[in-house]
């Protein structure tokens, strides 16, 4: 499988990349980790006229905590997984990064690419929904923040303008008594999810759920937030019945399709099972467990 020919340009900085995108007449593509884009190009399902390589742009590979957690778009999945801050305070991100594709792919694949590609099968989107992240988009007119709920428009389509680049992901600092997890069922290691569920729970001092975030992978044209399930939990004592109800609501929200990863009805039920398990695990973490 050989890609079609393309023009190649190395962006010196974000501004340069934006300028290249702007002048490509919609035919330009940003090359970050390339682990989704290059396979598509090899099958000639993507044939960009211009490939804008942003891998040499400085300043997009940092992870820092500054009130919130700020992750540069070019951070590789393995670096995210290994980062001491992330490991210590954001286990949900570690768990998400650790199940994306395989370890070799994760050495190149970037968190920004995982989100900007807007593949509903990608794993970060659900997690970002659960943790209520925002992304920073940079375009010719400057920067803007996009709340994660407004990022995913359709399969492979985001609300980024054609000449905007996703440069950073911002994740709110975990509240006290919070815990999160990402559970993914896959046909084998390295596969996309049959179903994936990200859950972030914050408990109040009484043990009630102060807030809940639940994101679902491969549950429709985009990653989705299971808002009804979140509502069921919020302000409630998370007993078995409430959790089960929330899990059922999450399954009801999921609209998976029948494919080689199983029939839709099966997947819907797996969303229920994984959501229940993820809520239980997130609550245990919120209470200080592993």
């Amino acid at each position, binding site marked *: *499988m*050989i*890609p*079609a*020919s*393309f*023009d*190649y*340009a190395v962006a*010196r*900085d*974000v*501004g*340069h990349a*934006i*300028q*290249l995108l702007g*002048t*490509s007449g919609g035919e330009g593509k940003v*090359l970050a980790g*390339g*682990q989704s884009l*290059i*396979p598509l*190009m*090899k*099958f000639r399902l993507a044939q960009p006229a*211009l*490939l*804008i*390589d942003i*891998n040499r742009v400085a300043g997009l590979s940092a992870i820092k905590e500054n009130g919130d957690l700020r992750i540069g778009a070019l951070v590789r999945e*393995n670096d995210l997984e290994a980062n001491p801050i992330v490991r210590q305070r954001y286990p949900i991100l570690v768990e998400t990064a650790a199940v994306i*594709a*395989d*370890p*070799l*792919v994760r*050495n*190149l694949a970037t968190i920004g690419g995982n989100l900007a590609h807007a593949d509903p099968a990608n794993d970060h989107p659900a997690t970002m929904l659960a943790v209520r992240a925002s992304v920073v988009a*940079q*375009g*010719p*007119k*400057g*920067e803007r923040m996009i709340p994660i709920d407004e990022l995913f428009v359709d399969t492979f389509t985001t609300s980024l303008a054609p000449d905007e680049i996703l440069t950073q992901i911002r994740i709110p600092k975990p509240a006290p008594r919070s815990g999160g997890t990402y559970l993914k069922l896959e046909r084998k*290691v*390295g596969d996309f999810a049959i179903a994936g569920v990200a859950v972030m729970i914050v408990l109040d001092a009484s043990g009630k759920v102060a807030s809940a975030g639940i994101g679902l992978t491969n549950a429709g044209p985009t990653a989705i937030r299971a808002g009804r399930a979140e509502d069921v939990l919020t302000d409630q004592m998370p007993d078995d019945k409430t959790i089960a109800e929330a899990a059922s609501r999450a399954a009801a929200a999921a609209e998976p399709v029948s494919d080689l990863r199983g029939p839709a009805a099966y997947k819907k039920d797996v969303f229920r099972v994984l959501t229940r398990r993820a809520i239980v695990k997130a609550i245990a973490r919120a209470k200080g467990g592993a």
Partner: protein
Amino acid sequence: MAVETAPATTTGTRRMKVHVTVNGQAHEVEVETRTLLVHFLRENLGMTGTHIGCDTTNCGACTVLLNGRPVKSCTVFAVQADGMSVATVEGLEKDGKLDPVQEGFHEEHGLQCGFCTPGMMITAAALLAANPDPSELQIRQAISGNLCRCTGYVNIVKSIQYAARKTRETAGGKAPDGG
């Protein structure tokens, strides 16, 4: 915050001269920009130890180290490696001495047809560089992006354990300050 305007070069290029250091040796070759790193190694440099086993970034037969990290060279353009270092199976043996990973694969029968072996060994070498004493699970996780159809992985795991042991023993034999 406004973005500063970049100097105007809006078009890219179809051919490009790339400088890549492979196994310590510098190469400068002009290639088509669409040239995959694996083809660059195999066709332009004639280094055929790195193999191609799939077209969907699954099998890992093409694994090389790019600036020290194992990646699938079928999913990297050669132009992306410009100015970087690449390590391939051909560079594992140094000064006529096999790398412990190579030795392990031979001693523990970690290969049969040999086709996945270069990629598997490169992944193993990277693992041991980062984690000199991996558990069996860590080994299995590390090689989960490399498919083998012959061995059933059991002896590959043993080969990597052999190499880990050997590396630790060798390191342990050195002066405490590391020499």
